[in-house]
């Protein structure tokens, strides 16, 4: 059931090619001019879809020029795939228009809900994991992939609470969504770290439990620290700090399982100068290179045989 419907060829090859296995950064208006003036060596840029759902002006002016020079990831934050409400057909149409205009190499959204009825809450809210929510999330992803005529990547969430109603582990839920819908995964390694600290789980086992072959992109970000009512650490996915060492370590583990894959440095608050973000993206590329090195070494004997 739920045979992938996005096998219709893309009108151009960007989506089929996918993002390069390189580091990328979020595109911020404060960096528009600098990017065009300095042409930094970076694998790709990512935008939040909703920020560009405007008629014209500087956002489209700069994005058009930057997209001509770099691969692009479009990342939605407002589709509310985990919502009880039906998907917003108008919003899906706007997304389809945006994707048609910029032909991004990748489109991703979240395993979360963000709106209820006609109220938009502007946050990625948690979903209980059971048969009912599984069916609903899969149905929504089928609709998205049908409408956009492409495979989407689904991002694992950073959560602060769990639900008594849940009957499945988050990894089990995500793996089943991938199996049923054919969607890919956006593995947010910071979210894995945050959620696993918050729920006292093993982040390495979490990554091992996901279908590695489905991972089409990785996100890295910084978090803020708080404590829960019992004084235990509670991490907040703030996107307002550099990537933490624990997240780099976990990223190494993810690379060993997944192989080199497009990796975004996400920064939405306290945005630093562009070179600071580029340096983090280049750090991700160095770790990709290290992850690749052993397999190249393994390949040498064969090469020598030839």
């Amino acid at each position, binding site marked *: 059931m739920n045979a992938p419907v996005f096998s219709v060829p893309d009108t151009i090859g960007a989506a089929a090619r996918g993002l390069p296995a390189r580091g990328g950064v979020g595109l911020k208006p404060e960096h528009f001019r600098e990017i065009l003036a300095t042409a930094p060596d970076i694998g790709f840029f990512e935008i939040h879809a*909703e*920020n560009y*759902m*405007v*008629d*014209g*002006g*500087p*956002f*489209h*002016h700069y994005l058009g020029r930057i997209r001509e020079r770099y691969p692009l990831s479009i990342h939605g934050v*407002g589709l509310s795939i985990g*919502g*009880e*409400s039906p998907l*917003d057909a108008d*919003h899906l149409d706007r997304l389809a228009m945006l994707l048609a205009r910029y032909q991004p190499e990748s489109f991703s959204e979240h395993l979360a*809900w*963000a*709106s*209820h*009825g*006609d*109220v*938009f*809450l*502007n*946050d990625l*809210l*948690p979903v*209980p994991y059971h048969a*009912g929510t599984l069916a609903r999330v899969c149905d929504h992803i089928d609709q998205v992939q049908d409408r956009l005529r492409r495979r989407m990547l689904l991002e694992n969430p950073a959560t*602060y*609470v*769990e*639900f*008594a*109603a849940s009957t499945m582990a988050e990894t089990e839920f995500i793996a089943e969504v991938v199996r049923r819908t054919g969607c890919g995964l956006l593995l947010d390694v910071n979210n894995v770290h945050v959620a696993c600290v*918050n*729920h*006292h789980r093993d982040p390495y086992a979490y990554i091992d439990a996901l279908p590695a072959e489905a991972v089409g992109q990785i996100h890295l970000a910084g978090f803020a620290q*708080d404590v*829960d*009512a*019992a004084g*235990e650490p*509670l991490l*907040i996915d703030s996107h307002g700090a550099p990537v933490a060492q624990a997240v780099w370590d976990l990223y190494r583990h993810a690379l060993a399982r997944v192989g080199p894959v497009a990796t975004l440095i996400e920064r939405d608050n306290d945005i630093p100068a562009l070179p600071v973000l580029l340096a983090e993206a280049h750090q991700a590329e160095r770790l990709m290179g290290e992850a690749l090195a052993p397999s190249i070494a393994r390949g040498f004997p064969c090469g020598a045989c030839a």
Partner: protein
Amino acid sequence: MRGMRVSDQRIFADALLTGRPSCPPGLTAWNGSDPERRFAIYRSNVIVSLIDALADTFPVTQQLVGEEFFRAMARLFVQEHPPRSRILAFYGEGLANFIEAFAPAAAVPYLADVARLEMLRVSAYHAADAMPLTAEAISRLLADVAVLPEARIGLHPSLAVLRSGHAVVSLWAAHQAADAAQALAAVDPEAAETALVLRAGLDVEISRIPDGAAAFIEQMRQGAAFGDAAEQASAADPAFDLAATLGLLMRGGAITTMTIPRSATS
């Protein structure tokens, strides 16, 4: 059955926005700690991110009343008027009306109009693109006095006019100055002003225009013929200067089309 209950996400959303209940039922934590503390992270994310979105749109409004007052007011606005759109750039569209009815802000009678101006500025920034007519094309039409009175002028989608009983442009401009306090001291907030908001290229410009120019622009926007619009503008403002108004619009690239109805050319 699950489907028969009041929607779980409805309860969750109400708890986020109103604090009633303070924490939705059915939440757990691995260590058995009170989930309300954990749930509060979501409430903070929702409310603070929306207040931040408003602060981005209304920097001068915020400066006029101070950050603490602005954020407290914005919090009430968020709770009473949560976004109905996923596109947050325009979320502040209801804030000026809210300010007008917000008693604690009554001591700053021009606050609502400054907020209106700032919202128009954001709308102009994101408005559709349109190529201005060249000066040559405009001059050619202006010279064709036989049909000019029947001409319709199309204006740039970013263009907006705001009439205020307060010195809305001067107040806004004073906050762009290096020494805002000194610039502000020179402004009489009770002097009525009319603002023209227009994106020229990539930059939104805010300027003060005479009433006659505002009347002419409003007539044009409503599709009035050039001759009628000029007449109405003169009636509204005896000092109306047609040439100066056209010069202002041409310099800002605001004239995007000029058409002569078929009936006028036959």
